[in-house]
């Protein structure tokens, strides 16, 4: 199964809506243990992508992912900008000269998440977006290896992300701004984990409803 980059405008739109809908809630999360700018940062990036939406859909996956990465890198700022920039640039590189099928995507995404770990000097359990990205990548690869339907795969990944975000609540932050609060970071969900989960859910929903082979 292959999906064309033509789906991207719809995905970007769905992400924009999901972040907008949850803007206040996520900002409250980031104000509690961060500096409160996470949603505004992401939205700056999303708006930049929306402006490029039309042309983006016409490129091939490797190029488009690289371009998305560069756009996020130069518009989002903050910790999340460099991390999402790194994620997509790496995914783009991984897809270069590859047929963009499911296994290639799963592998590229896993490589992207590895690059985020490197850039952030972080790993699972530190109360960051990685607590969503790592299980999501894992789930995607597991499902890609198993022969399940696309709908099941999307449901699995979405669920892995949800479990991941909830798990950050009990974690002590050891990376990012929240780490400065020490014990005071306990009991709060990480804002970056939450938006990663929201974006994954939005992407899965668009693909699920796109009529791609199930």
């Amino acid at each position, binding site marked *: 199964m292959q999906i064309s980059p033509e789906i991207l405008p719809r995905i970007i739109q769905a992400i924009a809506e999901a972040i907008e809908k949850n803007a206040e809630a996520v900002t409250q999360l980031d104000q509690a243990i961060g500096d409160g700018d996470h949603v505004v940062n992401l939205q700056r990036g999303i708006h930049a992508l929306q402006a490029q939406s039309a042309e983006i859909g016409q490129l091939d996956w490797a190029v488009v992912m690289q371009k998305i990465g560069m756009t996020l*890198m130069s518009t989002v700022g903050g910790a999340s*900008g460099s991390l999402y920039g790194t994620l997509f640039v790496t995914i783009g590189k991984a897809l270069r000269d590859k047929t963009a099928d499911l296994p290639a995507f799963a592998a590229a995404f896993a490589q992207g998440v590895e690059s985020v770990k490197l850039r952030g000097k972080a790993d699972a359990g530190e109360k960051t977006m990685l607590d969503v990205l790592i299980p999501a990548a894992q789930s995607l690869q597991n499902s890609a290896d198993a022969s399940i339907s696309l709908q099941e795969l999307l449901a699995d990944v979405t669920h892995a992300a949800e479990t991941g975000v909830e798990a950050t609540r009990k974690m002590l932050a050891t990376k990012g*701004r929240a780490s400065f609060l020490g014990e005071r970071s306990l009991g709060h969900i990480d804002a970056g984990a939450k938006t990663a989960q929201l974006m994954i859910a939005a992407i899965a929903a668009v693909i699920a409803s796109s009529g791609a082979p199930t």
Partner: protein
Amino acid sequence: MKKFINTIDSLLEDSLKGFAKAHADIVELNQEPHFIKRAKLGSPGKVVLISGGGSGHEPLHSGFVGLGMLDAACPGQIFTSPTPDQMLAAAEAVDQGGGVLFIVKNYAGDVMNFEIAAEMLEIPNATVLVNDDVSLPKTHSIGRRGVAGTLIVEKMVGAAAEAGADLAACKALGDRINQSTASIGVALTSCTVPALGKPTFDLGDQEMEMGVGIHGEHGRETLPLANASEIVEHLARAIDEELKPQPGQSVLLHVNGFGATPLIELHLIYHLAAQYWEQRGVVIARSLVGNFTTSLDMAGASLTLTLLDEEMIRLWDAPVNTAALRWGA
């Protein structure tokens, strides 16, 4: 939220234009991407110093661009690290052939964005990471934050670069100053980020946040409000335990306001902090009091102490001509 503002989106851009116009003899503003650079570049072969970080800390860093200090500053959105394209463009614009020294405050976002720029930059470069905030343990998982000590690194390394020190020497000097510097801050109120429209946290009338960074975020602990002597004692002791200045040691004492604290209070704090160290035989050889590393409209202040040697005193005294720090020039 009561601020002088038109739209949240235009605030930074228009403010930068105002800054550049008001100081056109010293700086120039580059649009797309944003950076502030010296109006008159240094001499060929000079190491250029580039710093940057989220906006909302003014005059840091743009106010420190000029002769004897920074060559360029990259302002991010409010409290948001700037992006690698800014550092790259700034480096190319001010490069004099001597290499680039990035001066970066230790925050995940700043570190990673500057790191990406450093990796992509095709000019020899090095980075000094400032982490002077002793409200955090030295062993903190991501290291201590960079706060008001940053300007001291920028000033002294800026003087060295102006005098012809090479990239390795500037980098080593910056690291040494950073290691000789300790800061800690306390907040009486949070601040209001324009995009959010309300204070980042609420604090009771009889509470203060001890060990805050410079982004209006919670500190290490909420303590009952104390009088000025008790607060200064608390701050000074944390620094003293870190740097352990000996009797006879020369130091630079910097009292920094977070934006909404009147000078009359900052000078009171300076008086009490100076007393603290003078009673211990420490020699306050240089001082700086004012709002230099701010958190928008936060009420609060930080103390910074730097252990000085002869070279550092000479570098501190060297001419500087920037919007916010100026002497001998």
